[in-house]
């Protein structure tokens, strides 16, 4: 009796699943960069309010996943924030929707307010390991970096060049966790997307320039990377609608409001 019921239950579930498959609402999936993910979620929400017939899903995964899933069609639009797109992404259609500064952040209790790009390089390579050496207190430096494959990390290392990350570095797997780790550890230094700076951490000047939208737009702050949306084929239909929306003035204003740098203004 009981047995039959559970079977019926299983069958019912399978049925629901099939139905779910059958009634396909137009749906667009974005996947990729975790740095851009929060903004994409927000923009997707706004987009769906205006276009309720299109269902936009946003997945994280990272830039590499963005490229891979666009190629394999697991996602309709890939999100990648890399200074240089890798070989396999050359044939994808890439649209720059925003630019993003990479801020070097320390704990608010750290007196260090600015670093040169050489100092940043030395700290992350491990040749400088005490804050004293860069004008701070006599405390060891805890380097916090991203995992291999992260777009933020590869952009960071490409822009600065010549970084072979110290083995001592703590590794965290998202901008948010970098922020939390730096916020919790007075000796820590990390880097993260400029849009995610809050008062738990302190961005430092790099080569005398603040990581702010005006400084980035004026070209004085050098740690900047583009955010690309990638499609396999020239966008059409619902995908094009989503991409067009991303470049609309409303979306660009949202991007600006969230701390990213809009491409149109």
């Amino acid at each position: 009796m009981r047995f039959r019921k559970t079977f019926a239950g299983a069958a019912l579930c399978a049925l629901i699943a099939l139905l779910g498959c059958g009634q396909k609402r137009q749906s667009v999936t974005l996947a990729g960069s975790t740095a851009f993910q929060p903004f994409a979620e927000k923009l997707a929400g706004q987009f769906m309010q205006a276009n309720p017939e299109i269902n936009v899903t946003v997945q994280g995964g990272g830039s590499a996943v963005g490229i891979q899933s666009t190629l394999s069609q697991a996602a309709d639009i890939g999100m990648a924030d890399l200074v240089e797109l890798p070989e396999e992404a050359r044939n994808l259609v890439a649209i720059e929707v925003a630019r993003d500064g990479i801020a070097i952040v320390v704990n608010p209790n750290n007196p260090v307010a600015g670093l040169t790009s050489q100092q940043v390089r030395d700290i992350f390579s491990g040749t400088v390991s005490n804050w004293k050496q860069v004008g701070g207190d006599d405390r060891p430096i805890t380097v916090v970096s991203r995992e291999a494959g992260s777009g933020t990390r590869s952009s960071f290392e490409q822009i600065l060049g010549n970084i072979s990350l110290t083995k001592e570095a703590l590794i965290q797997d998202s901008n948010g966790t970098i922020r939390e780790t730096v916020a919790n550890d007075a000796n820590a230094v990390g880097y993260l997307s400029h849009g995610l700076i809050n008062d738990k951490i302190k961005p430092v000047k790099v080569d005398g320039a603040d990581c702010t939208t005006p400084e980035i737009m004026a070209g004085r702050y050098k740690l900047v990377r583009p955010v690309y949306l990638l499609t396999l084929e020239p966008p059409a239909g619902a995908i094009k609608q989503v991409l067009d929306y991303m470049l609309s003035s409303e979306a660009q204003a949202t991007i600006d409001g969230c701390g990213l740098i809009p491409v149109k203004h």
Partner: protein
Amino acid sequence: MKLLGERGVQRLLAGIAFSAISALLLIALFIIKEGLPFIIGYGPAKFLLASDWNPQLGRFGIWPMIVASVWVTLGAMLVGAPLGVACAAYLTEFVPRRVMGVVKPTIELLAGIPSVVYGFIGVMVLAPLIRSSLGGPGLSVLAGAAILGVMILPTIISISIDSIQAVPNSYREGSLALGATRWQTTYMVTIPAAKSGIIASIILGMGRAIGETMAVIMVAGNAVKIPGSPLDSVRTLTANIALEMGYATGRHREALFATGVVLLVIIMILNSLAGMAIRKRAAKR
């Protein structure tokens, strides 16, 4: 069910009965299929024993992760095993049955708390404590071992209690009749008699510790290096997979599946050891 007939039902059930072993084989097959070619192509010795993990440069040595997993797991054993066995012995031998009837399920509830909650408490409470009192980044072998040690307590306690309870009462009575105290009886008679069950519980706890992922990612800091002290940050095998899986493509991804193969092999060995210990106990009885 009527239309199947007795024979049909029996066949159906026989088929279903192989679901678990099929699931196991399917899992092993796919993990191995994705990972083994990489291990062979890259060279097993280089993969297992090189200490350089740098996917961008195509260098995949997981020795630091293996060492880290061993350190963290042994640390967890150091915390969990004595505490767990002491707890089990106390509850079975020195406390009225009724008290144990309440305490044992309560401790088993510890097992139900999601690992992310343990990890979060590790980050919020334990890591800052270690950082401020002992130095280092706080996210460390020590933090990982302590959190895992607590997480495996229910496994160790519950299986140890079962095996201590299974020791025939005549053993205890014999010892007490010879004038031994209750404690002497416990550590000279009861615990040795329950030894294989207790060992099995510790091995199963070890399996759980080595396989734990989310809590370790949160508290161990994930630096790729061979730890020099318990205050150093490390990355375990499981953390390596979970951290980079989302971002990995091509050979990098294969290397992570290969890490999974190594993990699977370690777990299989531990499970077989535990199984052997349990069977030994069953044979003795």
